[in-house]
């Protein structure tokens, strides 16, 4: 397996301005040094509670939010070093599926115009070929040809999400950021869209960065899972491994919140005290130490290193001092 996307120490700080003359008084550290790799044709799920920086990470990877620092290496090219034109050319490879299907389609454009736009922008094919491509894409996402001349407001949420997916597929990308693509949909429609995404991945070999706060959805679609807390990736492992044996205290707390469909089985819930600290002023050391049930004095001082508690070919990374002695040999 070859690596498609490699993100190294990505940071996105939003400046907070205030006082006289609009000075920068602080930064919201939405993404604070995230590194991961994504292989071809695989899905990396990102979970975390709201405000932890999942969506910002997804958009920073696409340079929709200009990252503060770090490297984004897609197919060997560092996106951060590209100028405008080169970036536009690279945009053909990477796309995004948005959370809110009501906001992601321009209300004044027909379905045909919306899906065809990527082809128009990159001047692909003749007008006739573009029309044909649009019809193919509709077929791929399971919509009828009759919808072409209609407007977004005439569709349900699930149908709109399909239109959005068709648009992101138009350029045959090999990497798609799916930013909570099903959170705004009904549960019955969620599974349809998830199956569609799974099928696309099988048939086209697209890599997904799948962002969600829904642990069940993440488990269903992901090959690997990353857990985010306060702008950092605290645990990164294969989905099976992570769900079977979560290591980081935060991941354990998250997992204990998954409802178990068995009334007799009493699962032990780990209730976290306190609130998420402000990303404007994150605690020193491990960002989780203020709420961690296993916090040690060391956690307040040193940022935990990334430790591989799995094997060489089945890595399981944890950013936690608890496993400092356990690192794989």
């Amino acid at each position: 397996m070859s690596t498609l996307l490699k993100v190294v120490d990505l940071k996105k700080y939003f400046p907070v301005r205030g006082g006289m003359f609009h000075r920068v008084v602080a930064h919201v550290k939405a993404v604070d040094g995230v590194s991961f790799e994504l292989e071809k044709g695989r899905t990396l799920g990102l979970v975390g509670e709201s405000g932890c920086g999942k969506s910002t990470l997804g958009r920073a990877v696409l340079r929709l939010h200009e990252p503060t620092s770090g490297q984004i290496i897609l197919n060997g090219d560092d996106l951060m070093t590209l100028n405008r034109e080169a970036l536009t050319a690279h945009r053909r490879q990477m796309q995004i599926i948005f959370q809110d299907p009501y906001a992601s389609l321009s209300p004044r454009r027909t379905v045909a115009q919306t899906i065809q736009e990527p082809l128009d922008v990159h001047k692909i094919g003749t007008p006739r070929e573009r029309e044909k491509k649009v019809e193919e894409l509709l077929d791929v996402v399971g919509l009828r040809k009759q919808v072409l001349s209609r407007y977004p407001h005439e569709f349900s949420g699930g149908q709109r999400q399909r239109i959005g997916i068709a648009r992101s597929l138009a350029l045959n990308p090999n990497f798609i950021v799916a930013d909570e693509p099903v959170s705004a949909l009904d549960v019955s429609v969620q599974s349809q869209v998830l199956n569609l995404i799974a099928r696309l991945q099988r048939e086209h070999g697209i890599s997904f960065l799948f962002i969600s706060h829904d642990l069940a959805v993440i488990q269903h679609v992901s090959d690997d899972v990353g857990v985010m807390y306060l702008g950092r990736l605290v645990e990164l492992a294969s989905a099976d491994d992570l769900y079977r044996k979560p290591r980081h205290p935060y991941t354990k707390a998250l997992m204990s919140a998954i409802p178990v469909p068995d009334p007799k089985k009493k699962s032990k819930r780990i209730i976290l005290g306190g609130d998420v600290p402000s990303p404007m002023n994150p605690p020193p050391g491990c960002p989780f130490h203020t709420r961690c049930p296993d916090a040690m004095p060391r956690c307040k001082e040193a940022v935990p290193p990334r430790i591989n508690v799995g094997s060489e070919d089945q890595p399981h990374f944890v950013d936690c001092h608890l496993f400092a002695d356990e690192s794989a040999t």
Partner: protein
Amino acid sequence: MRLNPLTARKLRRFREIKRGYYSFILLVTLTVLSLFAELLINDKPLIISYDGQLTFPTYSAVRLGVDFGLGGDAANVPVDYRDLQRRFREADNGDFVVMPLVPYNPYENSEVDGIIRSTGPNMERQHYLGTDTTGRDILARLFYGFRTAILFSIAFTVLTYLIGIALGCMMGYFGGIFDLLFQRIIEIWSNIPFLYMVIIVFSVIPATFSIPTRITILLVIMVLFSWTFMTYYMRTETYREKARDYALAARVLGASTPRIIFRHILPNTISTVVTFIPFTVVAAITAITALDFLGWGLPPPTPSIGELLKQGTANLTTAPWIVTSAFVALVLILTLVTFIGEAIREAFDPKKFTIYR
């Protein structure tokens, strides 16, 4: 071209609001008619039949009396067609003159018994609303004044919206220093008193400038000091639309900035701008009338409602018909436009037709 079904629905709703719709039809009819005012209210006839030959002098050059067999004093001066009509009628040899509905132009001073003075409405002499203090036909002046006012306010609206929308959209889209700079410039600019500027400019420009030039200068000054209000609205709208997912989606696709602005942001912001237009037209008509009333508006002898109002108030007791006609005409025009504005606002009510869910 196929309309967006939402737009089609808004238009249908506008047609259902009868008061606004009929006002719209009436105003459009009046405006179109006023473009052909020369055929309706003029001292030149529509058709002359002389010696079996037809002439249509409305838009032609000045004709002299000799052309129509007039001798004596009338031979080498421009033809008085009303007089010609009378002569042809008396001669009764098949020649005839068809005059427009009101056979006076808005500039000529018609005298009664050799004295130029204001006369009341007179059907026989075809001064249907009477004449003003210098003997000019009031109906003619009102109609030509209406034409000037409506064309002026349409030009004014188009220009202010063009500048306001373009700048406001740029401020909202580019943000940052550009936005900050222009906000401050606009704040300073919009605090310059516009009336003083008009007075100063018109006391400086030489009287030799032709009337169309002077009207253009007035238009430019008014536009220069009025475009700012539109930027506030467009700026915030653009800020909002720019952050919506569909605009982001266009950026991910690699769409260029002009493409995002013209294909995505403008179509989604501009539909609400439409509701402001009638009220801007009302404001423009009121402004130009007020300026005329004060004597700083359209240069004389351009016919205008404000100028008639001024004459009317000065001669309230001796010639009440002047102020009555001017007042009724002004109220009528403003009411029509306001009705249209209300109907458009109602038809475009975002609560009824939200484009998001």
